[in-house]
Each structure stands twice: as structure tokens, then as C-alpha cells.
């Protein structure tokens, strides 16, 4: 996903938030990953906003995508220039209303923004893991989120919400811990990557691995593979946009010039934009994390993992009420994938809503302000909250 951190136009904010962390799986009690490898200790960085209610029934878990982090909303300090990545959706009176819900967001396993990943220290060598870090899966990420919620004393999740790779985690939650998940909002996501999505990820990974500085993942004491990571990010950005959005945003316009330069500088605005996005990304993201997380997303296959190849069988275990959302111009996670998901959920007799939002902005649309998306998320959460209360009263 791109970075579309926007200030709330009405200046409504959850206020100051703090990054916290939880460390578990200290040796010899390491966690066993899906690959069979053992990993420990594991640290998960997380943030919360809103108040946990007395019966701990108002928890909304937000799962971030490839390059996101635990900083979902609010500010770290009074003079913090920008809020969390989904500040337009999360806050008092917003789609995910922090006056009502207790929001938890954690940095995924394998990432580099506070949680254990390839750039953190391997206790055995006292060096960063690099490629000694085991390959992790979406299932492993969710397992760590579960450990965090156990630590926080949370047994039920009112709603688990996320887009893109975050949406995969949402689906994984629904089938791995069905008894905990009351409802789920998978946005712009899929039960498994299309061939094309895997292909783009592979090109991005190759860009990193072809950078001489990458040095088989062992670069933490020297120069980083910034050029490779920047190109990987540029490829990603193309897949997050759409033909339409690029035409509207840049067209064939030139950057600060009236004619071609007849060399290989960035002539077109789109070139300049991609170079800027790439260069900005390397300051805050680790190239190895990019490799691990994209691999985890390519490996993800809900049908294979949970349903012997059948999506219908995979959702058999799920108990959640679903709100599935896709966007018309999203060619990375196209609507047909969301529809297939909805059909499988429906065939299991589960409560499911689905809407395909008309949007020109490609995959990135899920992070951009949309009144319709906000209103649907809000209405859906209110309903599941009401229904849960009624069911509890009936007991």
C-alpha cells in the first residue's frame, strides 16, 4: 500500500498514542512456525486507542498491509507532523469509533517497525538475523497477534479489519480462531494471490536481490540495498494505482520542464513520482522485511491451507459475520476474487455483506477517504455490536 497519511479535515483525532511492545516465546519456549522452524524470543510492537470496556467485548483488531505499522491513528507527540496511517478511519466518531471501540493494531511478524523481523537481533549470534530469519507466513503473523491478545486478556474480537495483506490476516483469523471472531471486514483482499500478483512481487524481490549491497541479506553493518528496495517500491506503486488514476494524476505531463531532456533524467511526472516514492521508502523500511512479507503474501492460500483446495470448505470453520469490500479499479486484488470469497462464505450459511465501491484509484482506494466506505464500516460495526449485546442479554 502507498502512504496516504492525511490529516483529518475536521481535526478530529484520537490524540496522543504510545507504541508499546510485548515479548514472548523466550527460549526454550520458542514458537513453532508453519515452516517447522522455531523462533524466540518474539517481540510484537502494538498500539491501542479507545477504552477497553468492562466485559472486554469492544475490541477491534486492525491488521496492516505490507509496509504499514502499529501506528494506526493519532500522534506520538504534540509536534508530530503526521498521524497514524488510517487516521481518517480510526478516531472519535469516525468509521471505527474510538469512543465506542478499543482498537488494537500491531506490527506484523517479519516487519521492521518494532516487531521481530530480519533486521532485529538474533540472540544466538548477537547480530541482525538477515537471512537466518525463518520464512514466516500470514498464519504465523496471526499466531503472534493471538499471543498479544492473550497477553492483553482479550478473548473476543468484535471485529477484525484490514486491507490487502492485512485482509489476508483477517481471513486467517476467521478460520484459525473462529470462536474469538465476532465479525470481520476484509478490504481489497483475496484468499490467495493471483499469478500476476506473485509475478509483480517476484520482480520486486529480484530488484532487491540484484542490488550488490544486498549481499545475501547481510548488509546491516554497511551500505544498504537502497537502490534495489527503491525499485521494488516503484513496482509496487504501479500495482497500487490504475491506468485511469495514473492518467488523471500524471498523464504525459513533464516534470518542471517544457521539453524532453534527451537523457535519462526523470522527464515525465510519473517517473519523478515513482523515484520520489522509492527514495522515501528506503528511509523507513528494511529490504529484507520486504522480501519476507511479500513471500508470506505469495504463500498465502486459504483454500489449500484450510479447505483442501476448496474455499467453501475453508470457510466451514468460520463463525464471523462478514463485510467484504472491493474496488472497481483494483487490478492487484480484483473484484472477482472478493466475489469468490463471498460465494464461499455464503455457501456456508454465514452472514455476509458485499459491496464493490466504484473508485478510480486502484488498490490504494481502500486507504483513501471514502464517505461510502466509512459509512458502511460504521453501520456494520454498530449492527454487530448491537446484535452481540442482544445475544448476551438473551443468555
Amino acid at each position, binding site marked *: 500500500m502507498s502512504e496516504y497519511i492525511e490529516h483529518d479535515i475536521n481535526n478530529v483525532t484520537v490524540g496522543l498514542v504510545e507504541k508499546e511492545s510485548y515479548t514472548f516465546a523466550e527460549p526454550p519456549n520458542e514458537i513453532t512456525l508453519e515452516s517447522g522452524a522455531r523462533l524466540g524470543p518474539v517481540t510484537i510492537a502494538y498500539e491501542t486507542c479507545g477504552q477497553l470496556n468492562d466485559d472486554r467485548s469492544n475490541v477491534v483488531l486492525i491488521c496492516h498491509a505490507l509496509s504499514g505499522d502499529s501506528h494506526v491513528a493519532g500522534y506520538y507527540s504534540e509536534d508530530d507532523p503526521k498521524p497514524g496511517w488510517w487516521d481518517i478511519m480510526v478516531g472519535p466518531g469516525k468509521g471505527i469509533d474510538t469512543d465506542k471501540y478499543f482498537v488494537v493494531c500491531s506490527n506484523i511478524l517479519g516487519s521492521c517497525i518494532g516487531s521481530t523481523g530480519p533486521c532485529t537481533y538474533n540472540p544466538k549470534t548477537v547480530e541482525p538475523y538477515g537471512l537466518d530469519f525463518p520464512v514466516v507466513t500470514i498464519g504465523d503473523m496471526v499466531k503472534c497477534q493471538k499471543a498479544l491478545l492473550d497477553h492483553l486478556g482479550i478473548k473476543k474480537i468484535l471485529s477484525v479489519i484490514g486491507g490487502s495483506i492485512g485482509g489476508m490476516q483477517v481471513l486467517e483469523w476467521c478460520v484459525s480462531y473462529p470462536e474469538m471472531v465476532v465479525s470481520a471486514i476484509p478490504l481489497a483482499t483475496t484468499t490467495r494471490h493471483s499469478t500476476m500478483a506473485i509475478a509483480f512481487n517476484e520482480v520486486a524481490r529480484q530488484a532487491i536481490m540484484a542490488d550488490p549491497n544486498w549481499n545475501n541479506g547481510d548488509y546491516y553493518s554497511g551500505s544498504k540495498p537502497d537502490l534495489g528496495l527503491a525499485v521494488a517500491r516503484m513496482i509496487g506503486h504501479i500495482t497500487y494505482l490504475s491506468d485511469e488514476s495514473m492518467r488523471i494524476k500524471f498523464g504525459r505531463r513533464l516534470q518542471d520542464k517544457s521539453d524532453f531532456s534527451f537523457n535519462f533524467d526523470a522527464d515525465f511526472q510519473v517517473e519523478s513520482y515513482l523515484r520520489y516514492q522509492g527514495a522515501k521508502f528506503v528511509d523507513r523500511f528494511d529490504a529484507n522485511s520486504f522480501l519476507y512479507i511479500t513471500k508470506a503474501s505469495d504463500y498465502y492460500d486459504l483454500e489449500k491451507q484450510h479447505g483442501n483446495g476448496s474455499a467453501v470448505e475453508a470457510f466451514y470453520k468460520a463463525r464471523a459475520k462478514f463485510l467484504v469490500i472491493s474496488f472497481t479499479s483494483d487490478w492487484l486484488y480484483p473484484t472477482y476474487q472478493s466475489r469468490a470469497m463471498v460465494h464461499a462464505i455464503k455457501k456456508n450459511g454465514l*452472514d455476509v*455483506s458485499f459491496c464493490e465501491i466504484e473508485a478510480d484509484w486502484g488498490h490504494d482506494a481502500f486507504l483513501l477517504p471514502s464517505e461510502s466506505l466509512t459509512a*458502511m464500516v460504521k*453501520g456494520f460495526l*454498530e449492527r454487530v455490536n448491537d446484535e452481540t449485546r442482544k445475544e448476551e442479554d438473551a443468555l
Partner: protein
Amino acid sequence: MMKPEKKKMRFDLQIIASWIEPGSKVLDLGCGEGELLYFLKEDKQIEGTGIERVESKVARCIEKGLPVIQGDINEEIMDYQDNTFDYVILSQTLQQVYEPSKLIQALLRIGKRGIVSFPNFSHWRVRLQLLVTGYAPITKQLPYEWFDTPNIRVITLKDFRKFSKEVGFKIIKEVAINTQNQAKSGKIIKFLPTLFATYGIFLIG
């Protein structure tokens, strides 16, 4: 959230609502903005869901807290298991369906009862318009020209009864009403309904 006004429902929907037992499971095919489902949920504590094609209407439903799927009713209906619902409603949509018998059969497969309503093409104004003007009739219930109408079928009350015998379903109850297109009020027509009713509503099984 904006809670919709529930009392002012379209007259034909009021009749349909009156036929539904409290606490039932209901599917509304072509549910629009969820007016009927919302009323039934609030007043009869039904467990309802809907299918609607238009994005903005689907969004309104979900905002109101109704589970609704955006899609084509002919396709979406196929996913449900037999007898999933107590009632499946097809309100003012039959005249736009390409394969009515297939849809009705699917409807009665997944629902114990069906409720079907449509504009009555044998209303006297329709008959008179064609007789006097010689043009394809345009009424408040069927307000389109022949070339831009979504209503690809013209159905009369008698046609539907004949159709029930051919397809092989039972008409359990029927009511003929006279109401304007979006009107909140109307009346039940007992005298010569085939001439004086603008809509027919059928409970089938």
C-alpha cells in the same frame, strides 16, 4: 447513524410486511435501499438479508445495519442451500427478469414461501391507452418507452395465475392493490381486480 423513518413505507411493502411471521428468516431479492428489510427487522425481529445490484443502494443498506450482497439476483440466489429462508421476496422485479420460471423455481428451492409482486398490465388505463392511442402504454407503474424500459415482461394478474400452473407452484394468497408508484397509501381492490388493480401481490409455495 441516520435511522430511517420506518412507518412511511410503500403501500405494497406494507402488505408484504403484514404477511410475514415475526422472527422469520427473510431474503429480499432486489432489496433497494432496504426499506422493507429494515422495517421487518425493527418491527418483526426477522433475520433478513438482501441482494441488490446498485452500489449506492447496497451501501445504504449496509450503513443501516442490514446484511446485503451486491450482485445479480439470478446468480446470487444459486449459492443458498435448500429451505434456507422462511420467505423469499421478489418485489416489483419479476417484470425485469430474463428467465422468470428459473428464478421462481430457485426462489422456492431456497425459501419455504415466496412473495412476488408486479405491476398489473391489464389495468383499465393500460388497456384503454393501447386501444385508443395505438401506442405501447406508458403508465405511472410502467413509465418507460418501449425502447428504454427495463421491464422486459408484461404480466397481468391472470397471466401469473396461469404461470403458476405451468411452472407448478401454488398460490397461497393473493391481493390486488391500487397505489401509485412510490405511494405510501393505497387500497385493496376486491371488485374486478384485473381491471382496477395497479399491482398484484402473491404468496406462493
